[in-house]
């Protein structure tokens, strides 16, 4: 029994040590860095200041922030609109192929979104397949300049992130008790009422979980605007990347990252509140 205690102590010790070094300490350092000043010769000067946070309200940063929030917000809404009916149909399907249908969503979930974004680049480029298809069908007679625009970024983001909306929704909708819908119907509720008062509130945790997995990455996947958007579309992710690797303003980059973390915290609180009972983390995947 003494060995068991040692075993338990060592196991839990290793886990905590790892997380302390590679998860807790790094985030503490980010917060600390965000409070420092940009150095002239070295990366940061050890002097506490709130400058980086104040600078966030600078017009140019604010513009990127708002643009980024809008883009990520639109992407999230689009993913819900496309993904919800989709997840609903699969989750409620009685088909033999249900497992296979779900598997077809799991593949893009795990496939590199870089590769998938590249596929979109190949599709959308001026001499790409989409333009030739539309031209041969006679829909257009001049190739469209689809690439390097905000809509291309939006297509890339939705394409990359839609599976992250569908899977949590699926997990949630699958657990939905159909008898509740029947009960509501029996009590005289019409389709609209059933959807708004029964189905939506019960699947709300799934919607929030999915939104969290779409909204936050949508702001931070810097390679999607890099490949699809040209210079105009800059996300917070691009800004952070730029502050760290080009502008060498680490405190500013850290402050931006802290903002993202705060945003994540808010969404987590929303999720936990909506899920009330501590749900299994599995539901998210």
């Amino acid at each position, binding site marked *: 029994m003494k*060995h*068991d205690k040692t*075993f*338990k102590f060592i*196991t*839990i010790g*290793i*886990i905590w040590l790892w*997380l302390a070094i*590679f*998860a807790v*300490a*790094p*985030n503490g*350092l*980010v917060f600390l*860095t965000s409070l420092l000043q940009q150095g002239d010769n070295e990366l940061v000067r050890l002097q506490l200041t709130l400058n980086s946070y104040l600078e966030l309200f600078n017009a140019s940063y604010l513009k990127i922030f708002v643009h980024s929030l809008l883009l990520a917000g639109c992407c999230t809404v689009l993913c819900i609109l*496309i993904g919800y*009916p989709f997840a609903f*149909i699969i989750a409620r399907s009685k088909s033999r192929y249900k*497992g296979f*249908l779900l598997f077809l969503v*799991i*593949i*893009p979930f*795990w*496939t*590199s979104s*870089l*590769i*998938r974004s*590249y*596929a*979109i680049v*190949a*599709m959308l480029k001026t*001499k*790409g*397949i989409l333009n030739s298809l539309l031209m041969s069908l006679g829909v257009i007679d001049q190739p469209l300049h689809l690439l390097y625009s905000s809509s291309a970024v939006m297509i890339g983001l939705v*394409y990359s992130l*839609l*599976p992250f909306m569908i899977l949590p929704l699926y997990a949630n909708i699958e657990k939905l008790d159909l008898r509740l819908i029947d009960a509501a119907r029996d009590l005289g509720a019409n389709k609209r009422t059933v959807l708004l008062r029964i189905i939506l509130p019960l699947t709300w945790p799934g919607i929030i979980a999915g939104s969290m*997995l779409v909204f*936050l990455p949508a702001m*931070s996947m*810097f*390679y999607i605007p*890099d*490949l699809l958007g040209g210079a105009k579309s800059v996300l917070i*992710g691009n800004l952070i*990347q730029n502050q*760290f690797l080009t502008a060498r303003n*680490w405190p500013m*980059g850290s402050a931006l*990252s802290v903002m*993202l973390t705060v945003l994540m915290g808010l969404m987590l609180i929303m999720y936990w509140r909506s899920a009330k009972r501590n749900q299994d*983390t*599995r539901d*998210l*995947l």
Partner: protein
Amino acid sequence: MNRLTRIAYLTAVYLFFYFPIGVLIVYSFNNASYSLLWHGFTLDWYKELLTDTDLQSVAWHSLSVGLLAATLATILGTLTAVSLYRYRFRGRQLLHGMIFVMIVSPDIVMAISLLILFSTLKAPLGFWTLLLSHITFCMPFVAVTVYSRIAGLDKNIFEAAKDLGASDFTILWRVIIPLLWPAILAGWLLSFTLSLDDVIISFFVTGPDFDILPLKIFSMVKLGVKPEINALCTVMFGLTLLMVLLAQLVLRKKQ
């Protein structure tokens, strides 16, 4: 919605998912550099990949980091899941929450936090920093995968093993791991895919001397669309497909 609308809707979304990837795969076999027209089947682009020595070393980097990171993350993640299930200790809820937060948090936040850590420790960016980072972001996924299976085990088995005099280590080695190997293997496979595909975190924590496949693809794609990239992406996609398929199969087997 009637049946036909449902089928049409599903088909449309699946087309959206698979059409671009399908086009990519088809064009990786097209015998023309820039043309959209089909010029016959060729394996030239794949042969080109095989003879590119630079690409080979990059692929080797990716594979070695992937194999090591997946293995270590699986060990760490499995230990985490088992501890969360079997032990009551201070900070258990916190650990649970942290695993969850690590999965949800945007890659870029973890990327720069690790970059700042390594720069504070004055660790040179390269193989080691990449490996440590990959273990860190894969580990929560293994923990969640294994935990979701362990919760379905019969607790009496552990009691029985204990009554028969097994130590905690023996229970882990002789009872838990044999019972959970599908989940552990699935966790390993998924970690390997995650590690092989990661762009954002690797972008920040590796140095110029240690390039890996996703970063190589990223810089190639920035220069334009080429048939070699189509071939490389097809290979990567095939590999992911294989891993996910295997993971799903082993998970389903013991359900």
